[in-house]
């Protein structure tokens, strides 16, 4: 269990140099958002295939090693197969296929697979951003993308600073959560006289864990606040360093072309 929880950093920056890594973070965010919209508009095979191909191409250009792919837990695979089988066995959607003497609904199976693949493609697109974008570049990029909101008095600067701080603190808090999960396993398991007492104790546990997590995190927050004040506050936190380069224009053009094709292509 804990060996697996320690593997949570699957969605982490992969430090290699590639054209995708060098893209402005905002470009990649726009591309992922666009892919989401396109697939929601046309959740069909041609669109899924086009966007999927774009993600795979991106991963290849980014020179990502195959090891970045997360290992799927067995219970997930089992659930997936069961769900697909149930849908195919039960549905009356044509065409029918007869295997092992049972008639299966090919239409339902197709839908099940399509639904799943669509989710994988969208998750893959988001993962591609995480694998190729240093967290440090994220906040400035989002700040730039949010600029129009600043014109209508949305506190975009506060948002940018908070995103930067969130990105900074996430590794610390993941570490704490790992320690807490381990500590939970190490605690002595008391014996309960009744089922009721056991139930009460089981309800109490998440409360205790949350209290500890929040207390520790807020302490940390106040130390961070001290550190920010010691640097003269946040008013000057410069975020305007990201700039669109020509490679970003090219990348956006390619993405836009593929997404348009995905939306317009006839079934």
């Amino acid at each position, binding site marked *: 269990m804990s060996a697996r929880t320690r593997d949570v950093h699957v969605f982490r920056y992969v430090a290699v140099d590639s054209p995708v890594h060098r893209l402005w973070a905002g470009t990649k965010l726009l591309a992922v958002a666009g892919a989401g919209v396109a697939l929601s508009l046309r959740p069909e095979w041609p669109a899924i295939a086009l966007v999927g191909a774009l993600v795979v191409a991106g991963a290849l250009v980014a020179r990502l090693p195959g090891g970045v792919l997360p290992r799927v837990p067995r219970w997930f695979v089992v659930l997936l197969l069961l769900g697909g089988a149930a849908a195919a066995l039960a549905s009356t959607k044509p065409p029918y296929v007869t295997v092992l003497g049972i008639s299966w609904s090919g239409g339902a199976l197709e839908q099940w697979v399509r639904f799943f693949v669509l*989710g994988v493609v969208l998750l893959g697109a*988001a993962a591609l951003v995480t694998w190729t974008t240093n967290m*440090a570049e994220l906040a400035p990029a989002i700040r730039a993308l949010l600029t129009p909101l600043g014109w209508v008095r949305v506190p975009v600067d506060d948002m940018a600073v908070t995103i930067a701080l969130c990105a900074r603190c996430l590794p610390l808090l993941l570490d*704490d959560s790992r320690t807490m999960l381990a500590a939970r396993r190490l605690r002595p398991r008391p014996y309960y006289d009744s089922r009721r007492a056991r139930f009460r104790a089981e309800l109490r546990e998440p409360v205790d864990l949350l*209290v500890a997590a929040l207390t*520790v995190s807020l302490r940390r927050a106040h130390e961070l606040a001290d550190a920010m004040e010691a640097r003269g506050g946040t008013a000057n936190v410069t975020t305007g360093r990201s700039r669109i380069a020509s490679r970003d224009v090219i990348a956006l053009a390619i993405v836009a072309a593929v997404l348009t094709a995905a939306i317009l292509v006839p079934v």
Partner: protein
Amino acid sequence: MASRFPRGPRGARRLTPVELAEAAVLIDVSLVLCVLGWLLPYGGAFFVTSAVPVVALAARQRLRAVVVGLVAGCALAFIVGGTGLTISFVEFGVLGAFVGWGRRRAWGRARTVAVTVAVVWPIGAAITVAALQVFSDLRRLTFDQVRNSWSGVARILRNLGFEQLAHAGDVVVSWSIRHWYFVIPAVEALVLIAVTWVAQTLSHAVVPRVVVGRPHARLGITDRDGRRGTSTSDGQAGPVPARLVDVTFRYPGEARAALDRVSLTVETGRFVAVTGPNGAGKSSLSRVLAGAALESGTIERPGAVALGRPHGTAMLFQRPESQVLGVRVRDDVVWGLRYDDATAVDVDALLAQVGLAGLADRETSTLSGGELQRLALASALARAPALLVSDESTAMVDTAGRRRLLDLLRGLTSRGTTVVHVTHRYGEIDPGDGLLRVERGRVIAGAAPPPSPEATIAVPVAGPGAPVLEVRDAGFVYSPGTPWEHRALQHVTTTVREGETVLVLGANGSGKSTLAWLLAGLLHPTEGEVLLDGDAATRHVGAVGLAFQHARLQLLRPTVRGELAVVAPDEGSLVRALAEVGLDASIAGRPIDALSGGQQRRALLARLLATGTRVLVLDEPFAGLDDDARVALAQVLARLRATRAVATVVVSHDLDDAVPFADRVVGLRDGRLVLDEPVGSFDRSAVSELVADVRP
């Protein structure tokens, strides 16, 4: 409308550092819980818990902080887990915001649920219906999916003979799908009511128990333009020489003054050491020097404190990982500086000056404690400060790192920087330093420090007995097969015997913490084996008493008594358990968060010992303790060795702490065992080199 909801002057103000930090950290906790909800098989319940940090945020801070935090969380959730994670984060975040808003106004449960549903439901339902209307293909696909799943169930029901039930279901499902624009919002309303109820109940149990120690005295108020608010902070920087006249300082809501009519002068260009016992007012003195508002008295300075501004005041704190703000080393050095000032800073030269040459593009989360403190120093130096206040910045750093940091601090005085260094280690003071001793809020200038306390070490009754823990050619690799693959240990073989105290030494990243996790059975060794009494340690999780450095994460019940209740149910055994670690029984009823760090560690030790464990593994038990707490803990461990046959493994990066009562020293470097010898027979300088905080 505008007159009913006036836009107060507070409403338009930018977020203060405290608001920003609390928003960022609590939103992060919420995100982590959401991710756990996705990863763990029994995850559903985790999603509701992810609302609780947002409840705490909304109950503690302005609405602006909550909104900003939620937007930031969305951005991060989108990056980390795509649309799915973002949607679950937003759902529970918004819910938490409303529940927290209710807490703030002391609403009852019914009212909280009613208001939340009344506000959130119409918007949520409208968004869902609109989205399903626009993305009609996706809608059809989803509904087909629902229909397929149902017809499967119906077929099974029919085969079992429940024809009528199946038929009723057919009718309901097809009717629901036909009238989806009505049914979906109705279901959403029901789910919303249930989830809000659960979130409210849960946070009602959690939030009141979250106490974050004493209210922090803010160093200064940042106004809208980011300038400091107090009059002493405006204008030309000139923090030294500072002459304090009858300065009284009090933390908000506390009866006792932290500093009581203190008068002293901090001269330019000196190294001033501030010492004194815990809670005497050392930190208060450093905060006052950095511009915290006084209750009475005056501080005469030639100019402004100018905290964090060029040529003003810079400050270092105790905890290494909490004062680094940038994700990358390079960003952290100039964090908070004006753009012009930031571009003028020669980051690489500064890093070289503090011994971090070539690390500019590293991520800060990969640095060791000593490196982080030197990075904090670099960012202080980026401001060319006239006054540098170091509030126990050496407390959490190992011996070698401490010496290095102190040398750097002392060196600054030659360039005219005044350094005020707060420490509870008397050994850090040089004869030439200015010396201020703080005791119960009063300052005694130039007073000699008391002699360093020494632990009296009891002699063990018997020599080491039978082997308890055996590590046989063990190795461990994190994230094998991925680009983040990292080997922490290889070919480690050692044995821990009954009644023996083993000190595991190594620098940061040497694999010593991984070894502690392996010994406790929390990790499966990638190669080799770790045996507890001849059986795999992983099959006996909990048998080895493991104490993490951060004891608070292991002390979960509200009081010491509650924490020990499982292992010491009656008063007599409780008193005995506490006495074993040198704690007074009067501590039993106190809230965990009212204990000092040293007391927390000892309370945890009491619980571990009361289970009758035969092996203790302590991860950095001395880090961050002051001299008195250090000696008290050392004495407890030494007594344990003498009176009980408990095998103890102390994991440390500090040679000085555990050597007096250790039997054997095990040294790790880069995951390999490089030393395994009895105390007394090894070469001290070689060991110092082992833990030296220097990277190749």
